[in-house]
């Protein structure tokens, strides 16, 4: 438990650094450390499948963000905040913190069983799906429509990115015919 709290403190400090620092490249690297700390927290909370997925997704997000940051050749971005931004931030923190405090009081304490739906999945999961890895069995057998939705969303996002980053032939009209044919 001590290790869990230490890692949560590490993630919190990393997040504060990522938001407050003015250099864009440093803030992207701080996001990388947050993701790594989150992966280890997932391991401690008993979710190794999630830890693998989170690690590789973090690496890919870092590669793409650093590529976008280095290519723009602009290290210092923020010129300074205004007073209104600070006031809105503090107001939002008070508002959200108040609601979150009342919401967390009504949850059962950490570690107690809260979801009774998963009991049926654990008892019958191996007989009905035949999969040893319970998380993958639930993901692709009991909840396979979610995976269909996720694969479709990823496909749509990739196609959308390809459309945004297409080279437009502004000077030559001939280039516009080639991708279409």
């Amino acid at each position, binding site marked *: 438990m001590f290790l869990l709290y230490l890692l949560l403190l590490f993630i919190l400090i990393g997040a504060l650094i990522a938001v407050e620092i003015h250099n864009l490249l440093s803030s992207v690297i701080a996001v990388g450390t947050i993701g790594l700390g989150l992966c280890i927290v997932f391991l401690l909370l008993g979710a*190794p*499948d999630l830890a*693998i*997925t989170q690690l*590789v*997704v973090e*690496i*890919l997000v870092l*590669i*793409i963000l650093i*590529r*976008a940051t280095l*290519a723009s050749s602009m290290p210092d971005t923020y010129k300074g905040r205004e007073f209104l931004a600070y006031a809105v931030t503090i107001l939002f923190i008070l508002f959200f913190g108040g609601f979150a405090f009342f919401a967390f009081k009504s949850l059962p304490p950490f570690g107690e069983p809260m979801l009774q739906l998963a009991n049926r999945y654990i008892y019958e999961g*191996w007989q009905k*799906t*035949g*999969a*040893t*890895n319970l*998380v*993958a*069995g639930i*993901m*692709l*057998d009991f909840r*396979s*429509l979610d*995976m*269909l939705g996720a*694969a*479709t969303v*990823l*496909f749509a996002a*990739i196609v959308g*990115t*390809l459309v945004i*980053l297409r*080279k437009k032939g*502004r000077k030559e009209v001939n280039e516009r015919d080639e991708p279409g044919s």
Partner: protein
Amino acid sequence: MSGMSLVVKVVTRVTAAFIFIFGCYVSLTGQLELGGGFAGGIIIAVGYILYVLAYGKSEAEIETSKEGAAVVMCLGMILFLMLALLGFIGGSFFNNFLPKGQAGEIWSAGIIPLCNLSIMLEVGAGLYLVFLNFITFNVTVREEKE
């Protein structure tokens, strides 16, 4: 963006193949051990990205890679949708209709290994395609602005 030094190039030739095999292993044994389709697909995409990063933009043939990756990505998506529609044999949409064999083998748990295979193809090729477009985008921006 030119390639890296000779040491990196030689080591990349060896490790990219291992990363590819590891990605296939993580994806295809998703129902027994950890992983599943998404993690395996991203591992394969990172293996290809490593190859492009080590050899530089001019040596890696990017235009033909783009077309090949697009074909594989669409193939993976079509395979996944066909598996979902074939579930009508079992009685409802997306039913698990193949026989569930003995636990601990690869060919167990019905439709799950085929789903993992199709997701691996789609995610791996799709993310590699996105990375290639991110690389080739910035060159044209700088040439047009100056």
